[in-house]
């Protein structure tokens, strides 16, 4: 897994590539939390999953945890560009009902204000 983080105003933009399973869940969780802990301005998260080719419940747990965290602070979380097989897993988990998805980063970033 590769993770690229960028802060745009009040939004943390996380671009993830590769496979999200148990082997990387901890490091993904810590990397995101470290950024959230270190910057009080951040209220929203946009996760670009365009480069993700595998996810299972370990990865969904990380998404749900970060969703809960920003929700508590009144922020929102969005998903961008999940490929069909990854999107199917996220959808089956019910997460798409609480974490809206957008076709591209720009649209998600406009919503996250």
């Amino acid at each position, binding site marked *: 897994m590769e993770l690229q983080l960028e802060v745009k105003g009040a939004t943390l933009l996380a671009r993830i590539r590769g496979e999200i*399973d148990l082997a990387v869940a901890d490091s993904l969780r810590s990397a995101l939390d470290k950024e959230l802990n270190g910057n009080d301005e951040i209220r929203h998260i946009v996760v670009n999953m365009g480069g993700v080719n595998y996810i*299972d*419940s*370990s990865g969904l*747990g990380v998404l749900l*945890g970060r969703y809960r965290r920003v929700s508590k602070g009144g922020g929102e979380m969005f998903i961008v560009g999940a490929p069909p*097989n990854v999107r199917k897993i996220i959808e*089956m988990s019910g997460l798409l009902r609480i974490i809206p998805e957008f076709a591209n980063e720009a649209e998600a970033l406009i919503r996250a204000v």
Partner: protein
Amino acid sequence: MEKHNIVKIEFPSLPSNVSFARVAAAAFAAQLDFTLNDLEEIKVAVSEAVTNAIVHGYANNSGGTICLFAEIRKDNLIIVVEDRGRGIENIEKALQPTSSTDPERMGLGFSFMQSFSDTLRVESSPGAGTRVTMTRNCGKKSTPPASH
């Protein structure tokens, strides 16, 4: 193609082996006429079972051993994942969706295993370990392929 084949894979309870296990299982399953979509689903089901063995069975301790059996019988795939970990007290409860004993998990492991198999059987005895058996027929129509 041969109509009967069985492989046994043994590995330690390391998180990096979740990926190894799902790829190995899918490479084996590919001997049947599964679609790519089917194989993706089989990968998730195997990953969930192996992840549970590591996270719950062995409480994230890397000293445990996990056994994965994959068998082809005619056009059926049978996958067995076994650990000799702490076992499950209440199997019925564990099988309920969103029932997790771990706050950082969603309790969806068994749901995915169920969705992506024709049959799922869980045998477990506290203190002795857990055996999860999944079967999937390759003629069967699967979940429709993912689409946007």
